[in-house]
């Protein structure tokens, strides 16, 4: 095909698409929600549970598209560059919209500037866990033990940039200790070795550890939220147990590309709020150990504030710990060109590499 003809074709097709979407009321076709992690993981579950109810409100199906890679930043990069028409939205996460700027020096989006925030969907609290015969009976003793023999303790994590890795880094940096870090590929194998007593402790999302804690195959010291979780009512908070500064949650929130029309964003936020008020949806989210944001916490403005504060919090912690994906000069210089007019962005180049967050 010669160059002009193809340009013409692209413009023609794009204008058909644009004309179509400008006329009718949003949404008049299925909405794609990019989930930047694999199907079946915690973020995917939140997205599917919330998305199912939102589909009812919007009157159009929300199609979940799992675009994995580079700790979730591959999918979010694609979403950030998609047409801002409300037909492509995404489920962001503490990693993609908080830790990523520190982890990926060549990140192609700015979590605070390149999105129209829709609203916070759920928080998933972090729990400090240890093997069941670990010699510390509560958080105070655990902290003392960490300070006394940190380097002799084996800390499990699910890979660079994963939730367990960043949140444990926050813990060790607040305590100013170093530990022997044992890396796994994902949460499953790490919990397996924690049960088997091969490693000493770790930090992870409540959904991955709650059942183990209840059964007593591993033990937990504290949950890093202001209030106790109904999933583990006996577990003290970090505030109660003597480590009040350790507050961390792997939150999930919905974003649209920057420039999404205000009425479209409002419709999406409305659908999200309705989903979070629905009894069935709430029950399923609570079952995951998730914390459902209150009314004030669901607004786009609250989400914007959260993103800004999270980036400000993670950047110094991760930089000080010297954790980052290696700078990749070739990836840094080969910028992704703007997407074809009207057409959704072609799969863009991913930013610098890192292990997937699980």
């Amino acid at each position: 095909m010669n160059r002009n003809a193809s340009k013409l074709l692209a413009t023609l097709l794009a204008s058909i698409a644009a004309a179509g979407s400008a006329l009718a009321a949003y949404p008049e076709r299925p909405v794609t929600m990019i989930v930047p992690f694999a199907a079946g993981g915690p973020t995917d579950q939140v997205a599917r549970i919330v998305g199912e109810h939102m589909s009812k409100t919007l009157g159009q199906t929300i199609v979940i598209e799992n675009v994995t890679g580079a700790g979730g930043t591959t999918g979010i990069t694609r979403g950030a560059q998609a047409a801002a028409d409300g037909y492509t939205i995404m489920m962001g996460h503490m990693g993609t919209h908080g830790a990523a700027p520190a982890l990926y020096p060549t990140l192609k989006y700015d979590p605070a500037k390149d999105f129209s925030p829709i609203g916070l969907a759920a928080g998933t609290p972090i729990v400090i866990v240890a093997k069941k015969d670990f010699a510390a009976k509560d958080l105070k003793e655990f902290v003392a033990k960490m300070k006394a023999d940190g380097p002799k303790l084996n800390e499990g994590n699910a890979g660079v940039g994963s939730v367990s890795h960043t949140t444990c880094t926050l813990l060790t940096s607040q305590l100013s200790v170093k530990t022997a870090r044992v890396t796994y590929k994902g949460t499953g194998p790490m919990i397996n070795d924690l049960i088997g007593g091969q490693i000493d402790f770790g930090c992870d999302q409540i959904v991955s550890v709650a059942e183990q804690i209840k059964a007593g195959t591993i033990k937990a010291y504290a949950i890093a939220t202001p209030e106790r979780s109904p999933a583990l009512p006996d577990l003290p908070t970090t505030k109660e147990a003597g480590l009040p500064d350790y507050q961390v949650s792997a939150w999930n929130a919905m974003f649209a590309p920057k420039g999404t029309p205000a009425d479209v964003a409002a419709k999406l936020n409305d659908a999200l709020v309705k989903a979070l008020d629905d009894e069935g949806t709430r029950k399923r989210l609570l079952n995951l150990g998730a914390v459902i944001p209150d009314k004030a916490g669901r607004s786009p403005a609250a989400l914007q504030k959260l993103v800004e504060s999270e980036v400000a919090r993670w950047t110094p912690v991760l930089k000080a710990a010297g954790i980052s994906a290696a700078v990749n000069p070739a990836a840094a210089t080969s910028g992704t060109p703007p997407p074809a007019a009207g057409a959704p962005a072609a799969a863009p180049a991913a930013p610098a590499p890192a292990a997937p967050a699980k």
Partner: protein
Amino acid sequence: MFDILGNLALGFTVALTVKNLALCFAGCLIGTLIGVLPGVGPIATIAMLLPITYGLDPIGALIMLSGIYYGAQYGGSTTAILVNIPGEATSVVTTLDGHQMAKQGRAGVALGTAAIASFFAGTFATLVVAGLALPMTALALKFGPSDRFALMVMGLVFAVVLARGSVPKALAMIVLGILLSTIGTDGETGEDRMTFGLPQISDGLDFAVIAMGIFGFAEILKNLENPEARDVVRGTIGRLLPSRDDLRASAAPAMRGTLLGSFLGILPGNGAVLAPFASYTLEKRIAKDPSRFGNGAIEGVAGPEAANNAGAQTSFIPLLTLGIPPNAVMALMVGAMTIHGLIPGPQIMSKQPQLFWGLIASMWIGNLMLLIINLPLVGLWVRLLKVPYRLMFPAILLFCCIGIYSIGNKPEDVMMTAAFGFIGYSLLKLGFEPAPLLLGFVLGRLMEENLRQAMSKAGATLLSLFDSPLAASLLVFSAVLLLLAVLPAVRKSREEVFQE
């Protein structure tokens, strides 16, 4: 013992409702039909079909999902036998003799043997799951990183034994596979390893991409080059089901494979992946005439297929007793359970006995369904070989493209597959075999993970790899096995040199 019978009876009352039977049947059937598409391996199949179970009640959804799982596994073996494209690591072994059998007009026999051996293994492994789940879990938990490392080293040595042609060239392919497995960001340090600035491979290479490129596309090109050879395959179809002699020859290998698979399946760190080649290696070692292997030996299908299915079954054990997924497929199952509000954990057996025993009963029913569905389908699959190749290969390509795209919804993956197709074709032209490369790729990654876990522990040194008696004996055994495999080749080439 009465406990088990009572529990199994409870399980069967759950699984034998009309609705659950129907779901199990539907799952097996859909799993087989999607899993048989080349380019769509079991993980992709389950990920694709996961959402259709969301509307069901938890037990029904799990029963259907396990049906899908068995169906997808068997569908993958079918593709491996018919068109020589493995959908996952474990069916690489099936391509070796299964496809050779197909080429000799024994596709039906190979498919039937695979189905029957799988059923036998599934039945045995279901009993293992029912009776020995708890002691086997305790045993598996004793495997630390250094033991798993030693196990993977042993697996790599098995891969040498699988080689059909020259030993140095097979070794080179295994090593190349290990090298390829290290591409991508280092999971421990975040350093960039051999990505050459390509962000597409920063997460490492995907098994399906390599398998499809190196195995699938290269196979298509090979067939296009030899129209005569491919038409010979199509011309003769032979009998559809294994004869009595075939069954007799398969019985002992299937039994040995079942035992191996049942044990390896419970190991953390994806030990099930070792089962088929451990079985193949064993069969080849004890065979009276090892040269038949690689040329359509039925033992090379029966043993590994049984091992594969037994391993697939017992790999449910860590999930059911601990709530820990031992591999990617099981991780998907955890996701499915969680979304239905069942968070798998150590208490599932005591708190939800209907679910636990219902699932075990439906495992066996699933295996039975698989047999019922697949024996009649053998005729259909074999007839598919009658489709003219000029139409068949573009269809295979299209399914591959869609399958690879669906893994991560990324066109870059499809491009990578094309690139590996070129690499695979070049390797073929240089006389290399693809199977050892794939095994090196899968095991190399696991080996490195476990080695680094063992070595990251506080106070670890290289010598501490031998602290565990199990790890030490596995490593010594591997070294001996490697010498046995390599020495004859060295001696042979030296003789050749001296002859001149």
